[in-house]
């Protein structure tokens, strides 16, 4: 029987939505730049090459549609990159899912009773204003620490993790009769 069946998700989080907004700013600029540039050029009476030729409508439609389709695709990719980075806390584990690139996805899982230290960090004006930041989770052993990057309300998340860790350690101590909760 798979013991993970009895796990319950305590919460699942992603980076703060404002982080996604910042990441798509270049795409938004690319979307609005051509009409603004054309407007400025026409307002100043500057004619583009080929404007008076037969090929111009064809060229502008082809180039314009390809340009907007590609900008749209990169916008979708930015969403994909944001949306597939998920951090989950269950009553047994911390699960860190990161989509690092199109074909590179890492999933790491750490047991709650191995957590030693949980730290939150809020940096910068936007982090302070929108209340987002990093949460660093240090576990026992030689593993890298787990980082929840730019999540909402990092201090609340730290409290939730610490409560879950304490509950899990108490469960293990009760189960094994071990007061230090190491489970050994």
């Amino acid at each position, binding site marked *: 029987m798979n013991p993970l069946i009895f796990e319950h998700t305590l919460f699942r989080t992603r980076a703060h939505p404002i982080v996604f907004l910042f990441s798509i700013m270049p795409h938004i600029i690319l979307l609005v730049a051509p009409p603004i540039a054309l407007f400025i050029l026409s307002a100043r009476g500057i004619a583009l090459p080929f404007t008076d030729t037969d090929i111009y409508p064809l060229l502008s439609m082809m180039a314009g549609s390809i340009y907007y389709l590609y900008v749209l695709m990169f916008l979708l*990719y930015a969403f994909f990159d944001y949306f597939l980075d998920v951090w989950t806390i269950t009553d047994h584990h911390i699960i860190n899912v990161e989509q690092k690139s199109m074909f590179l996805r890492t999933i790491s899982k750490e047991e709650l009773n191995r957590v030693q230290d949980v730290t939150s960090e809020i940096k910068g004006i936007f982090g302070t204003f929108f209340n987002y930041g990093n949460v660093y989770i240090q576990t026992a052993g030689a593993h890298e620490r787990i980082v929840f990057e730019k999540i909402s309300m990092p201090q609340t998340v730290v409290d939730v993790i610490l409560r879950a860790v304490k509950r899990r350690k108490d469960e293990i101590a009760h189960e094994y009769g071990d007061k230090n909760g190491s489970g050994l």
Partner: protein
Amino acid sequence: MLVSILFIAYAALLGVWLIASLIVIFYLLRYQSLSLSAWIVIAIYIFLSVNILYWSWHSTLPLLDFDFGFSFDSL
């Protein structure tokens, strides 16, 4: 001649765009198929893409002077 080269380049770029889009959509649905947000974003993406493609082809194809056997204005 120039029109043919343009058309081939256009078709090639569209092909690359289509494959890349399908990969991203496939990945999103593979890992987040239960998420309503993912479905909404994909629906908006398909809607906008179809609109761009429709208007682009609608405006471009008559200029290519190809006989497709029907008029795009009748659509």
